[in-house]
């Protein structure tokens, strides 16, 4: 019994607890003010969002406080604006005054305050939509257009200037997705152009105060554009038809004259007419192969037995006319040069003097300088007339500069028939200015010693790197000056090209005396670059015909007719000194040493007057067997020899 009684309260409690769980009452949740808006800046409305009501009937109240006043007021009107709203009429609305608004939710169990919100009416203006939107189709000379007009929303008082509205409208064709929007500013009318004929357009307008929110879009206004024929389209059709017509006619004509047109537009490319020249090889881009293909095995003769013959074959520089002759020859021999260049693929460093290749190289150089040659020729003729002894500094320099300076800018000097310095790895040979092409030839040869690409490239420009005849010796300093200051001998490839005019002129000079002739004639002079000393001086040495042990080593002449470059003086003058007969006596198997020794023994020249150091440098190598004659020719800065001394043979 007791147990039963005791269990009843338990059961009751359980029952109540269970029941209480289903219906739980609580104070209301926190309401939230969602927005406040004023349609015309004279009244405004605030809306809130109720929180949970806690299961009990909840009432909401809105309280506000005005700026700088502690009085709290309640919302005057909860109904006009609908559920959960508060409407402030004109009397309660003050502009430019801060309202601090709070909403309170109250039920039996308690109340809950929302977060306060500060509102200044002037910044919450959102007008109604514009009214009376009318669209009419109007005609213009360019076609029809739409005129849209509207009125401000009724409540907004724009007439007194209390509120200023700006408008915006949008248009689209029926069926399209994208609207085309236009700002209309404060005006109440707008024109829309470029209409599609027969299209149905939709138009909407909205407005906003200058600091406020955009209104809703007005209800759509439909307007149909009548059909019209756009004038511009007809013009385009005409143009299209006309062009098609012309196009067809042109095609027909082209067809008729296809051959001649082809010939005119795409002229046939002339093929190379070099015997032995393989076009295919050239197309493959292997120039070495191309040139090697041109090499005739038996040519040039590698034995030096016929040095003089070779000389005879190639170079004859006697007189102006003859010079030109030779130049022409040189031109013609370009092919030969090419051939020859191909052959010395052997990096025969020793060779450099009196090598048939040199000859060819020289000719190649001449060939290269074709263009300049023409120039030179003419000028030479002039020069010849002007002076007989030597080179007119001014003239020659002028021409030289003409020739050289443009090339210099390219970084290469196209010297004219050139004296190549033999040099690849060895010191350069002194260029003994004998004014002989043979010498040049020798130098030319040295170029040939360069690996084929370099030689071929050499073909293209006469001097890759120049020899500076003294400081600032522009013309001779072909190529990279900057690299020059260092010991030229350190340069792996270095060759000097003296202008062949150089040679020729000297020949001119000698003409009177001896008349330069080809090998076999004493008067023929060859200048060979012996070396370039530290000062970048070209040391020239005459070639001697006495010994032609080396291949194509041109040794010609002895005697006074040689002139060597003594050096370059401060005035950028190349000083030549005439060498008393120099005979080469020794010869080694090694050409190079032969040459060098010869040169050395023959003349201890060099050293420009400008640099005394050269003088010092020279004697070491110089065996001193022969001392150069003191006659000197001063080379003009441009490499032409200006003869100080009257007679030099």
């Amino acid at each position, binding site marked *: 019994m007791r147990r039963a009684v005791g269990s009843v309260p338990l059961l009751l409690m359980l029952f109540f607890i269970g029941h209480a769980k289903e219906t739980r009452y609580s104070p209301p949740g926190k309401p939230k003010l969602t927005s406040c808006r004023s349609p015309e*800046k*004279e009244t405004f409305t605030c809306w809130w969002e109720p929180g949970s009501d806690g299961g009990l009937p909840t009432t909401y109240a809105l309280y506000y406080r005005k*700026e*700088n006043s502690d009085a709290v007021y309640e919302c005057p009107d909860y109904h006009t604006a609908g559920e959960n709203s508060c409407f402030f009429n*004109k009397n309660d*609305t*003050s*502009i*430019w*005054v*801060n309202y*601090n608004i709070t909403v309170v939710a109250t039920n039996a169990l308690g109340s809950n305050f929302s977060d*306060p*919100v*500060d509102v*200044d009416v*002037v910044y919450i203006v959102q007008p109604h939509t514009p009214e009376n939107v009318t669209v009419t189709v109007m005609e213009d000379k360019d076609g029809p257009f739409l005129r849209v007009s509207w009125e401000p929303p009724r409540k907004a*008082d*724009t*007439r*007194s*200037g*209390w509120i*200023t509205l700006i408008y915006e409208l949008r248009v689209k064709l029926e069926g399209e997705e994208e609207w085309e929007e236009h700002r209309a500013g*404060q005006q109440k009318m707008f024109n829309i152009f470029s209409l599609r004929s027969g299209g149905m357009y939709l138009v909407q307008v909205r407005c906003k105060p*200058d*600091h406020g929110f955009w209104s809703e879009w007005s209800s759509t206004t439909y307007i149909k554009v009548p059909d019209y024929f756009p004038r511009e389209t007809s013009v385009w059709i005409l143009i299209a038809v006309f062009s098609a017509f012309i196009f067809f006619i042109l095609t027909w004509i082209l067809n008729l004259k296809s051959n001649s047109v082809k010939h005119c537009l795409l002229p046939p490319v002339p093929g190379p007419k070099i015997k032995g020249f393989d076009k295919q090889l050239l197309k493959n881009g292997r120039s070495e192969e191309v040139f090697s293909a041109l090499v005739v095995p038996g040519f040039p003769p590698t034995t030096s037995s016929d040095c003089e013959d070779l000389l005879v074959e190639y170079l004859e520089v006697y007189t102006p006319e003859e010079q030109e002759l030779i130049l022409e020859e040189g031109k013609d021999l370009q092919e030969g040069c090419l051939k020859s260049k191909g052959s010395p693929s052997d990096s025969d460093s020793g060779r450099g003097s009196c090598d048939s290749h040199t000859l060819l190289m020289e000719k190649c150089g001449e060939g290269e300088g074709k263009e300049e040659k023409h120039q030179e020729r003419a000028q030479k003729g002039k020069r010849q007339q002007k002076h007989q002894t030597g080179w007119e500094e001014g003239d020659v320099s002028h021409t030289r500069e003409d020739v050289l300076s443009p090339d210099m800018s390219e970084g290469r000097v196209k010297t004219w028939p050139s004296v190549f310095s033999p040099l690849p790895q060895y010191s350069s040979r002194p260029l003994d200015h004998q004014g002989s092409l043979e010498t040049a030839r020798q130098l030319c040869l040295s170029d040939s010693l360069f690996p084929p690409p370099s030689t071929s490239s050499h073909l293209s420009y006469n001097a890759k790197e120049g020899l500076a005849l003294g400081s600032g010796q522009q013309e001779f300093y072909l190529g990279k000056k900057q690299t020059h200051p260092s010991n030229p001998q350190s340069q792996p490839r270095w060759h000097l090209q003296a202008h062949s005019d150089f040679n020729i002129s000297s020949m001119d000079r000698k003409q009177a005396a001896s008349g330069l002739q080809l090998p076999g004639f004493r008067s023929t002079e060859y200048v060979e670059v012996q070396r370039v000393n530290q000062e970048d001086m070209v040391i020239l040495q005459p070639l001697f015909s006495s010994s032609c042990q080396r291949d194509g080593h041109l040794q010609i002449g002895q005697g006074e007719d040689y002139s060597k470059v003594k050096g370059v003086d401060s005035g950028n003058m190349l000083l030549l000194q005439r060498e008393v007969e120099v005979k080469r006596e020794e010869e080694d198997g090694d050409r190079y040493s032969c040459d060098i020794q010869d040169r050395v023994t023959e003349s201890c020249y060099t050293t420009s007057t400008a640099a005394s150091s050269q003088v010092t440098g020279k004697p070491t190598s110089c065996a001193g067997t022969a001392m150069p004659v003191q006659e000197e020719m001063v080379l003009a800065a441009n490499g032409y020899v200006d003869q100080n001394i009257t007679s030099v043979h």
Partner: protein
Amino acid sequence: MVWVAVLALVYLDFPIRVGTAAICAHGQECHAPSLADLFDRVIQQSSRVHGISSELHSDYEQYFFPSKNHIGKRKCHTYSILTPADKENAQRLGREELTEVILRLLGAWGDPLSQLHRSMTQDQNQDFNHYSSNKALEMSDMVHELRSGVTKVAEKMKLLGVISNALGYMSSPESLAPSSVSSSYERGDFNSIDHHDLLYCFRRDSNKVKNYLRILKCTTLPELDC
């Protein structure tokens, strides 16, 4: 050389100061701007001033007080100037008084804006201030120009007989000196909260000026754009 330049400047400047009414190119017929033109200009100017002040205020709000609705117990120093707070009051005020209110407001803000600019430029440790001080300077200058513009409008209206000559404010433009609050401005010790409050107050006042000018224009010249 310097003297020559100075003299040249003076001479060039001189005609500008003398006549400001007419703007005409050489050889053209010279017309003094009409009242409508003057109104348009001052209204445009006031609109621009309000725009800049809104920008500055929102910049401050974003930069310093990201939490919204930070409006404390703020009291603008122009609260003593009685301004119509709704349309009826504004329309009831009449043109002369409305003009006077406008001029008072503009006059009351000349100094505080300069001080604001100065305070902003001095507070160089903040990048924000460096950027905003230019705006503050621009605002300050424009307010001065606006004030002179409105003065001209008033003169023109008086000339046209639109308003009577009983305009007391014109004589003492600088008479406004609300004491307590403006003293802090005069002290010059602003901080960013002061800046923020100042900008809030000025934004509102510039809005007032703009609105009053528009009302003035539309009541004086009702046919245009109203």
